């Protein structure tokens, strides 16, 4: 188990290291997030519409679409020189590859969110003073679930000829519960109703747990060369 943990960290470190050298994924994700904000302001006339109604949905659309960019390359980039086979031969349980990638993707997306969400609030002239902690926790739980299933599907679709097309088509329907739950929770926090959190929190936690544990059991089957 200790070796497993070390391998997860090693793989995650490698991902971060590669990203530090290339800076492609994160910078694209940030630029894309800002672009989404601009597109929203064009499409929804946010000056006049009651912002509270749209806010939560727009925020999650931004997060999801920018995350998708990072998820798409997560396993695809191991195809050059077939480095994936190199990882597969490592003397650890193969799900370590999944968790290493998951951890790295989570760090990337959290980093992007730390920039894009404040920008989102600034551009739409929105402040969250109460419940900031809850807001953060909900964003984190939602992101975790999305990245878990996204990383899994990124591996699953990496063998396909047209993985860039297929990842979103598989990811969106399967993550419906998560999207519904996250949007609802964020909406509740902003409107500071303070009530009705619990079913949604349960939903998201169940989703997170399911898609954090399933890979442990079946990830090995995805990655046979």
């Amino acid at each position: 188990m200790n070796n497993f943990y070390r391998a997860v960290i090693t793989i995650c470190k490698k991902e971060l290291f590669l990203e530090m050298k290339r800076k492609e994924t994160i910078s694209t994700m940030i630029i894309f997030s800002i672009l989404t904000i601009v597109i929203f302001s064009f499409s929804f006339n946010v000056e006049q519409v009651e912002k509270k109604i749209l806010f939560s949905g727009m925020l999650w659309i931004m997060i999801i679409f920018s995350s998708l960019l990072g998820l798409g390359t997560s396993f695809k980039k191991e195809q050059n020189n077939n480095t994936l086979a190199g990882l597969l031969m490592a003397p650890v349980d193969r799900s370590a590859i999944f968790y290493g990638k998951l951890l790295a993707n989570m760090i990337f997306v959290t980093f992007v969110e730390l920039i894009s969400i404040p920008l989102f609030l600034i551009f739409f002239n929105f402040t969250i003073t109460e419940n900031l902690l809850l807001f953060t926790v909900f964003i984190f739980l939602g992101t975790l679930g999305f990245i878990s299933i996204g990383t899994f599907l990124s591996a699953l679709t990496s063998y396909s000829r047209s993985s860039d097309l297929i990842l979103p088509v598989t990811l969106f329907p399967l993550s419906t519960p998560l999207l519904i739950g996250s949007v609802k929770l964020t909406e509740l926090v902003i409107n500071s109703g303070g009530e009705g959190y619990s079913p949604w929190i349960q939903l998201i936690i169940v989703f997170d747990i399911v898609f954090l544990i399933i890979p442990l059991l079946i990830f090995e089957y995805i990655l046979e060369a």
Partner: protein
Amino acid sequence: MIHFKNLCKKYGSKMVLYDINLHVNRGEFISLMGSNGTGKTTLLNLISMLIAPTRGDIIFNGKNIKEDNINIRKKTGYLSHNSFLYDHLTAWENLKFFGELYFVKNLKEEIKRVLNLVNLYLVRDEPVYSYSRGMVQRLSFARVMLHRPELYLLDEPFSGLDKDSINRLYSILRLLIKENNTVIMATHNKKHAHLLSSKIWNLNNGNIVNDETTNINPVTTGVDGE
């Protein structure tokens, strides 16, 4: 050391390997010969557990690789025709990553050791994409040797190399033989096979057609018959 029992591999309806029953002893250097598409790489992929057999078993040190695969992966080093290296990392960073993945102890010294063996120590901080074909091949070899495997699987190690690199690889291979390692090498070059190996397996139509023993002592014979 390794035992193949009724090993079969099918791709779709195509039988690539058919009913292979063979034995590899410790310290043997085996050359897998055969033209393209006869299943040399498939056999190596099966041993390295990158793919699963359709039928049959591979027994490694008395254990079925299906059951004890993590320990066996630790003892195997595979030089594939893909380098498995990250182009944007340097030689040192690549080896550090793989060393950590194999839990190599005294990693720094070990990296130095293998880089010196393949004569890449001086360019250790250059990214791999700046390397020539021969340098990449040598670095892959360093990656394979880093965790000191007992079994080396080499897929066409000499392809695309100039004479200098080939000579260097020969000396490394002779070192491996001297240390009583086991090597299975796929090649279509008769000369290399005869100069290095203690046994030659000819693959044809998915089966090993003959199993000849060479009389050459690979330790003392060099590429130029020195």
